[in-house]
C-alpha cells in the first residue's frame, strides 16, 4: 500500500522567511504532484514533477523530486501572506486509472 507523508502538518511562519515542506512516499514512483487549497475552495494544481531531479518554480515556490530518496520538497522563499493555504502532495499509483494517493496536507499560515 502506497503511503504519502507530509511534514510538517501545520506551519506558521513570518513574512519574508524561507521554509520547506517535505513529502515522503513509500514505494517506487516517478510522478509527483503538488496542489494548493484555499479555505472553502477546491484543489488547484501547482506543479507536476515527472522524473528524478525534476525542479519546477513558480514565483516564491519551488518544488523538486528525488525518486531515489522517495522525497519531494516544496520550498517557500520570502513568504508573503497570499501563500497562506493548505498544500498537498500526491503520488501516482500504478493501476487502472492511475489514481493519486494524497498526503494529509500542510496548512501554511504566513503571519505579517
Amino acid at each position, binding site marked *: 500500500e502506497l503511503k504519502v507523508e507530509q511534514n510538517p502538518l501545520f506551519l506558521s511562519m513570518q513574512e519574508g522567511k524561507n521554509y520547506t515542506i517535505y513529502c515522503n512516499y513509500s514505494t517506487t514512483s516517478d510522478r509527483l504532484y503538488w496542489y494548493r487549497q484555499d479555505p472553502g475552495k477546491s484543489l488547484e494544481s501547482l506543479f*507536476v514533477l515527472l522524473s528524478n531531479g525534476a525542479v519546477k518554480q513558480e514565483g516564491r515556490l519551488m518544488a523538486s523530486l528525488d525518486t531515489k530518496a522517495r522525497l519531494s520538497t516544496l520550498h517557500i522563499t520570502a513568504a508573503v501572506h497570499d501563500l497562506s493555504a493548505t498544500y498537498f502532495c500526491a503520488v501516482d499509483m500504478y493501476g487502472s486509472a492511475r489514481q493519486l494517493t494524497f498526503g494529509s496536507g500542510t496548512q501554511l499560515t504566513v503571519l505579517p
Partner: protein
Amino acid sequence: DVKVTQSSRYLVKRTGEKVFLECVQDMDHENMFWYRQDPGLGLRLIYFSYDVKMKEKGDIPEGYSVSREKKERFSLILESASTNQTSMYLCASSLLGLTRGYEQYFGPGTRLTVT
C-alpha cells in the same frame, strides 16, 4: 483550460433521501474520480472510473454508488443519505499527458449537509 463542473456548490438534504451529485468535464478525459474531504482526514477516494460504464471502488465506497453513462459525466449517488455523509465532495478528472502525467483537475466541490 480543462473545466470540471459540479452540479451544486451547496446542498442540504434530509436523512434517508436519495442524493445525486453530478460532475461534468469538458476535456475528453478518460479517468474520473469522486473524493470526500473532511477536516483532519484529508482526501479520501470514494469511487473512480477509467472508462464509460466502468467503475471501481476506492477506499470508502460504503453508502455510495456511481454512474458513468457518458464519458464526460460521472455521478455520485447517496442511496439513503445519513448525517455521517455530511462532507465536502470533490470531483476530479485526468488523462495521461506527456508533460502533465496523470495530473488531476478538480471541480469546485459540493458541500453537502445531511440533517
